[in-house]
């Protein structure tokens, strides 16, 4: 946090950042979604952005955290936690200590359980609303944020939520900027101690590198040879569709319109 910008900054945004893992090399890196979250926060005008990480300070994760600093930050708050700890309590304490109005995070972590539950747990703990899968923050006015949520199939939906709130970003959010080496070296990791809760359940579970999932076979459950043959040789046929012959173009158009409406694709 920089005290001198506190005066004119009206909105405080905290971005939750984590240490990611490169999908191929397995090296620690800035997590893709978290980097998008940082980029999203940078795009909100008149906001003061703070980075928060809860975790260890090993050499490898430090390099990854510095990648976030290289996106144009002087400092990152690091709540120190041992390996395998449940960071929820520590994060909630950090927010009690220095409140934020908008908290942005990725949807799922790239390491550990990666269940994507943390934003929801934190929201429940703080009593804030949570919105998932954002593509953009369109604006913040009078403590109300207008958000653009990414839906499947490239669709978007506009939502309004009263702050304070927690939001997560989708892969459709703007791509993160490159991390600049100089600022990344110069920035500070401000370590603070947080309370530690051990995640006992996680320790008791067995984990292994993901196995390839078996491909589903097309099993034809048929009572007779004829059905099996038909299933194997059949052409794709809708079967029993409605055919309008000798109708005027208007009647045909009417029928098509009715179907498009019933399916809800026409707006």
């Amino acid at each position: 946090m920089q005290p001198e910008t506190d005066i004119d900054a009206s909105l405080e945004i905290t971005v939750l950042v984590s240490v990611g893992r490169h999908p191929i090399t397995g090296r620690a890196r800035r997590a893709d979604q978290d980097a998008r979250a940082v980029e999203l926060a940078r795009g909100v005008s008149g906001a003061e952005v703070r980075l928060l990480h809860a975790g260890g300070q090993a050499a490898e994760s430090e390099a990854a955290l510095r990648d976030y600093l290289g996106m144009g930050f002087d400092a990152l708050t690091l709540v120190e936690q041992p390996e395998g700890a449940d960071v929820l309590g520590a994060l909630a304490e950090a927010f009690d200590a220095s409140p934020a109005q908008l908290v942005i995070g990725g949807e799922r972590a790239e390491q550990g359980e990666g269940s994507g539950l943390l934003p929801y747990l934190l929201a429940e703990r703080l009593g804030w609303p949570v919105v998932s899968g954002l593509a953009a923050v369109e604006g913040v006015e009078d403590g109300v944020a207008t958000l653009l949520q990414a839906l499947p199939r490239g669709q978007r939906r506009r939502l309004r939520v009263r702050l304070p709130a927690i939001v997560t970003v989708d892969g459709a959010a703007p791509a993160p900027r490159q991390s600049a080496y100089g600022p990344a070296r110069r920035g500070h990791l401000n370590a603070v101690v947080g309370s530690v809760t051990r995640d006992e359940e996680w320790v008791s579970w067995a984990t292994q590198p993901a196995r390839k999932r078996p491909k589903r076979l097309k099993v034809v459950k048929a009572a007779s040879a004829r059905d099996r043959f038909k299933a194997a040789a059949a052409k794709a046929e809708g079967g029993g569709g409605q055919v309008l012959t000798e109708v005027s173009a208007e009647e045909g158009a009417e029928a098509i319109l009715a179907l498009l409406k019933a399916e809800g694709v026409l707006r």
Partner: protein
Amino acid sequence: MSETRRRDPRKEWIARNRLHPRHLEALTELGRRAGQGAVSAWLGPHGLMRKNPRAVGFMGPNGVKRIDRSGVQQGAGGGGATKSIAQSKPLVEIASPAFLVAVVPDMPGGRLSQHDRDLLGLARRLADAAPDARGAVLAVVFGGYARQGEGELKEHGFGEAGVDRLLTLDDTRYDGVAPEARRGALLAVDDAWAPRHWLLPDSKLGGADLGRRLAVRLGERPATGVWQVMAAPDAPLGWQCTARGAAATLDIQRPLPRITLALEECAEPADDERHAAQALSLPQALPSPISRIEDLGQVAVDPAGVALAEAEFILSAGNGVTDWEGFHVAAETLGATEGASRVAVDDGFMSRDRQVGATGTWVTARVYVAVGISGAIQHLQGIQSCDKVVAINMDPGCDMIKRADLAVIGDSAEVLGALMARVKQQREEKRDAA
């Protein structure tokens, strides 16, 4: 039919004699008396079954005799009257279930998706594990959008997908993005029936979000990204699951918790029984929650910017399109993504990245409108997973018509023109009303 079987030796003789003028008549009569619709087999004079192989089968559509040995059709019937497969499945009713398995399907477009069916298959596995204490599968379905014009549900296949109890919650407060209202309803379900398992799809369509909200409020630690469930007698709920973690690079083995968010293909969809899908309603009305998230509605996106493979609504052009200007206008007015057949692309009317089919893009649209496309197999392959296909074509005999759910026979330019006129007229009416 009387109890005592009377034989008519003369009739039997006629029936054996193919050259007798009343041969067929006798055959029919004998067959009827034997209680079958078939005349191809009857009890002979010495108590032996006699068969007439020539009376077997029926005339196929091309005038060729066809024999159906599946047991569905018998004898010289005219064919056709086959019992629908759905009805031939045994109906299972679970009157007093030992426990409930609650499933909240996504229902994109008001129908069960493949993911939903897999999830219901998993629910059936959990429910049917102990044959003497079967559980019931409860499906909780949201939204008025799941209904058609007269309020009938769009989806008819709940019973076949394995649903015993069906709770439909349609209130405008659940429409659009209303995770808090939906969670409120699920909490009420939990209060009312206390299901042993909650299953939700771990999907972007809403299940992932809703499931996490529910779990957090119920204070359970859900299993997310579950793709495999195995019986484990020493686990608290009797099941063990494998879940994907760490951005799908880790497999986590853990006991199955009460709330499960499962991936696609987590189980085989249930399909050998028909369940009752008996309608339920909540014992008390829900208090209307104060929603802190306000939905301002869907934003119009540029349909041309949506990738063809994931577009929801495609208007596709083939060789039968004559008015290209009109086609592009139609796609824009309807808000549809443009697609094309190979001929339209080869002729230079559309760009190569718009081609649908075996050598183009395999599309997954919910609604696919094929304008002047004949339906060559290479094209039909590309639209296999489309839900509703509409065809506009001049030729009533072409393959696209056979595939289509709605086909309009007519000139493409005229039909599209009329469609545009209707859409514009309706939009103006709406604007005037507003």
